[in-house]
């Protein structure tokens, strides 16, 4: 009687051959819409490659990645070293992360574990509102107000500097972190907390030894995501950091990030020139970095996912 079936399991759903024609039409429309969005998004990457491609032949790629001078407007000997911009981006985003991580984590834990429902009902919308403020407003604030405060405290070399951008970016990172991290902590089942409390642990010990380890994937993903957003932010750093393109590591001096370089230089660049294509190359680098960061966040979430 043993009757074996060759084709075991198929991923595809069984198709219904009797769909009425209008239903097929709808499905076709949805399919086309999906392909147009995917095509549009693929175009982002394609256009970057196309735009950056001429740069590969006209400049030395090794020099591009190792060059310490970014001076693209020199009439005779333009120099396209991405390092000052890259370091500028890193200084500002790492600075921001250093500030945002403890505050963001503190906020998330407070929100997930300590806040009363009534306080939460006010606080969570506040976080969402903060996340919704356009970056140009943060940039404006950093330019006009925050830089004055920093000048008063640190007596910096230049009024618009890396620290100014880092602090402002930190304020933008916190809401992103809190939204994701708090969700992860909320997903930890109550029974785990109760088990720990029942063993005589204090609330803090429970948070530290049970809640945080159990939600660590979400918390790490939150940090990575927020960092990625900081790397890609344009307007805030453009307005806050002064845009000097010298390579240095001083938080109190002016820097220019990759994003800001693209935004500024396109104001003066000649269409189709070498400089134009190099800017696309910078854009490509930026795209790859942020895409990888996002991917890392997804990977972390999958890799360390706890199953309850």
């Amino acid at each position, binding site marked *: 009687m043993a*009757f074996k*079936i060759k084709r*075991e*399991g198929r991923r*595809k759903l*069984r198709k219904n*051959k*009797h769909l009425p024609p209008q239903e097929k039409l709808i499905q076709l429309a949805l399919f086309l819409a999906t392909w147009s969005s995917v095509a549009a998004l693929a175009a982002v990457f394609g256009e970057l490659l196309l735009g950056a491609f001429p740069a590969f032949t006209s400049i030395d790629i090794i020099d591009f990645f190792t060059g310490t001078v970014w001076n693209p407007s020199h009439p005779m000997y333009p120099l396209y070293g991405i390092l000052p911009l890259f370091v500028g981006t890193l200084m500002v985003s790492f600075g921001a992360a250093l500030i945002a991580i403890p505050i963001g984590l503190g906020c998330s834990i407070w929100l997930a574990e300590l806040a009363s429902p009534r306080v939460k009902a006010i606080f969570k919308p506040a976080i969402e509102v903060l996340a919704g403020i356009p970056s140009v407003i943060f940039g404006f604030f950093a330019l006009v107000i925050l830089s004055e405060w920093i000048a008063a405290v640190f007596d910096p070399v230049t009024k618009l500097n890396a620290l100014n951008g880092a602090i402002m970016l930190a304020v933008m990172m916190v809401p992103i972190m809190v939204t994701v991290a708090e969700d992860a902590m909320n997903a930890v089942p109550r029974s785990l907390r109760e088990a720990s409390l029942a063993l005589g642990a204090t609330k803090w010990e429970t948070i530290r030894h049970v809640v945080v380890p159990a939600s660590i994937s979400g918390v790490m993903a939150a940090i990575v995501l927020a960092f990625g957003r900081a790397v890609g932010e344009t307007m805030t750093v453009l307005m806050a950091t002064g845009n000097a393109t010298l390579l240095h590591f001083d938080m109190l001096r002016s820097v220019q990030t990759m994003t800001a370089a693209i935004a500024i230089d396109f104001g003066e660049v000649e269409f189709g020139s070498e400089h134009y294509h190099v800017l696309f190359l910078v854009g490509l680098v930026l795209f790859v970095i942020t895409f990888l960061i996002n991917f890392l966040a997804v990977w972390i979430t999958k890799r360390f996912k706890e199953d309850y």
Partner: protein
Amino acid sequence: MTTAIHTDDLHVYFEKNHALKGVTMDIGMNEVTSIIGPSGCGKSTFIRCINRMNDIIPGCSVKGAIMVDGADINDDDVDVVNVRRRIGMVFQKPNPFPKSIYENVAYGPRLHGVTETVDGKVRRRKHTKEELDGIVEHSLRRAALWDEVKDRLDKSGTSLSGGQQQRLCIARTLAVNPEIILFDEPCSALDPIATAKIEDLLVDLKKDYTVVIVTHSMQQAARISDKTAFFYLGDLIEMGDTKQIFERPQKELTEQYITGRMG
């Protein structure tokens, strides 16, 4: 006995998991047939084959024939929508739509409309308001829910109690006028009083419908069903008159199960 459903060597796979291993079975018309067995033995999988609900599960494949009215409804050429219209299903957890009670019952008839023959031509049209009202009232009466809800038909279906919700789901199924109704542990989420109401209803329904019910309660199977089938690890072990299965089981496994010597 007339056969309403005949399955022939029915196999189901979830990816590599062989969940149903060749079930051949006859289900009688206008009878209540119970399916019992330990959890995970494939009871739900089996009845979900009968109205092709397994089609919507990715990675699930069904092999074998399911004959209803002389045709194999498991054939790829059969319109699955028609199958489900003729063979209704009530689920384990009451799942009324988050709409009004009226809309819950009217949903099915609205989808299908009225097919009528005028001057030799088959035409489809929408129900009139009166027709719909009639169907809703009739279905709710048939499901023994009318008296409890007739004054609040516009209230949300989710606002009812668990037992009422389940009867609403039955009324909703009756409204599309199926021939066969499948129940997948319909009482497992309900209290004893609500359970008793549903059981009475099932016995009453068999006058007009063929009823197949999966249950984890042997008492329930004994109380309401004409035939009982015992499943174990994806195999149909034994099937027969309910009285015979519970009093003189032929197979060792069946006996172990009904005497409680098995998990």
